[in-house]
């Protein structure tokens, strides 16, 4: 049974005026995002945040404009091509199956859009994630996630800093993050950056602070019953002088008896009877965040340690001394402030003398 077909003149009544209306809305939307900085809703505290915001605004302009057309046409076609009450019951729509030219265009144009979005994203992505690795590290700071608070480590300050995190304004910073227990995340919305704090890994964030202020630090990775409360600490970006004062305060605070960690023993450690197997477990727990078992050049924070005690080509230790078990133990005991950052002391790493013996035995077993 052949049913009657309907026909449509052009693209239907009102199509072009309506398209013009949608285009106007889209242009207004794009203009709005072009002129409205997102810092109106969330400040930007670091230089890269402004670039990320620009990318956001491009997506908002393009994405919402696209949605305007999708919603617009869906509603318009639904209304304008609705079956009327006086239509015969077997009335049909236009029996077209496809239109190769149209389909080609609406494949090509989104493909070009994908290429453009990719380029726009890579443009912002590359400096943040790749190029930053070869720029000067600046101030190297650590944050450690705990259930349910952050602690911080600064070069030259013993132990850990609690409470708010301070940074000087206008300076490059390298922030290494890890966790002591479960996965947390370190997010400062004003930075537009976050990295997960994964136990056993050290993740890195590199940025340059550029706006004084107090900014929330928020955990965004479920970490237990008080995950929703892990947002009380602030990142305080302040002028250099005030930062120095805060820094000094913590240096002193962590050096006094009530807050100080126990003293490092002065005698060299007895390295006989070290267990390499126990040393490997310790290494994974305490060292693998910063050192890989790999060649010297395979650096996470400190150098790779596979060949440290057996590779004749291995350079001297960063303390300047030859790589012997006793000299390695010495670094584990006393720590080292060197060009790569701070190697914590035995006390900061909570290593007993026996632990050091085990670690040295483990390093000695790597061939």
């Amino acid at each position, binding site marked *: 049974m052949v049913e009657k077909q309907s026909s449509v003149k052009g693209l239907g009544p009102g199509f072009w005026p309506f398209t013009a209306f949608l285009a106007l809305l889209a242009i207004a939307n794009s203009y709005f995002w072009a002129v409205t900085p997102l810092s109106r809703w969330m400040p930007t505290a670091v230089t890269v945040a402004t670039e990320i915001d620009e990318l956001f605004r491009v997506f908002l302009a393009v994405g919402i404009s696209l949605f305007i057309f999708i919603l617009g046409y869906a509603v318009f076609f639904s209304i304008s091509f609705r079956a009327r009450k006086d239509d015969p019951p077997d009335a049909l729509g236009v029996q077209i199956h496809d239109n190769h030219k149209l389909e080609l265009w609406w494949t090509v144009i989104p493909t070009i859009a994908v290429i453009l979005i990719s380029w726009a994203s890579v443009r912002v992505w590359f400096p943040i994630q790749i190029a930053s690795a070869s720029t000067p590290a600046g101030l190297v700071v650590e944050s450690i996630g705990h259930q349910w608070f952050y602690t911080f480590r600064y070069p030259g300050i013993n132990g850990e800093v609690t409470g708010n995190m301070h940074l000087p304004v206008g300076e490059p910073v390298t922030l290494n993050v890890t966790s002591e227990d479960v996965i947390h995340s370190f997010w400062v919305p004003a930075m537009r950056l976050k990295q997960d704090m994964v136990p056993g890994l050290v993740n890195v964030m590199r940025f340059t602070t550029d706006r004084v202020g107090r900014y929330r630090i928020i955990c965004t990775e479920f970490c237990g019953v008080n995950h929703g409360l892990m947002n009380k600490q602030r990142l305080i970006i302040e002028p250099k002088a005030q930062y120095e004062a805060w820094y000094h305060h913590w240096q002193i605070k962590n050096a006094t008896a009530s807050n100080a960690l126990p003293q490092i023993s002065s005698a060299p450690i007895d390295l006989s009877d070290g267990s*390499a*197997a126990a*040393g*490997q*477990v310790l290494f*994974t727990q305490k060292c*693998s965040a910063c050192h*890989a*078992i*790999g060649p010297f050049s395979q650096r996470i924070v400190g150098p790779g340690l*596979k060949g440290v005690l057996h590779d004749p080509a291995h350079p001297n230790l960063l303390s300047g001394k030859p790589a012997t078990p006793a000299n390695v133990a010495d670094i584990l005991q006393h720590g080292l402030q060197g060009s790569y950052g701070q190697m914590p002391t035995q006390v900061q790493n909570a290593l007993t003398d026996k632990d050091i013996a085990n670690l040295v035995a*483990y390093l000695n*077993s*790597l061939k």
Partner: protein
Amino acid sequence: MAVASLPHQHAEHTEGGVDRFYEETRDLRLTGFLFFLFSDVVLFSSFIFAYLYLRNSGQSWPPPGIARLDVAFAAWNSVVLFGSGATMHYALENWKHGNFNKYAGSLIATIVLGIAFLGGQAYEYTHLYFVDKVSWAGSGIFGASFFTLTGMHGFHVAVGVVYLTVLLLQSIHGVYTKDKYFGLTAGTLYWHFVDIIWVVLFSIFYLI
């Protein structure tokens, strides 16, 4: 609507000597069985990925305190298993050519070699556990990955040994004919799959 109930006759399926119903359902079952084997490959692949990922994450290998695995012993055990693959192949070929006795002999040889392989694995496990002190849960990621993967494989071999024994008994009871023997085909495919998995496991645990 009356529904007549006629007794089923194979003749109504057969045209020109071909049982269409059997051929079509065999096609379905073969395709389904191959998809099943493929998904089993994916299961092994997920653990193989886990092993390679963990091994690659900066650890020394084998970890200190753990001796290198006994490649020679495992190589002999592999020969046993691959040999059983050959005997399985001959079993199916002999069935297709109607040589029941040779088929049965080859199938029994396959089962025996499969059991021998499992015995070899049992020996290796007890040696690792009691002599080398390597355990499933207590030897870090080495014990975890080695025992999990070879254990999964051994489980598949054990299931295969049972399956082949069932096939042998079924064939003795006349379940399969010269033209209809899909169970034997499936058994052969399964056994070869178990062999191929072992090739991969042997390479990644013993050779690299």
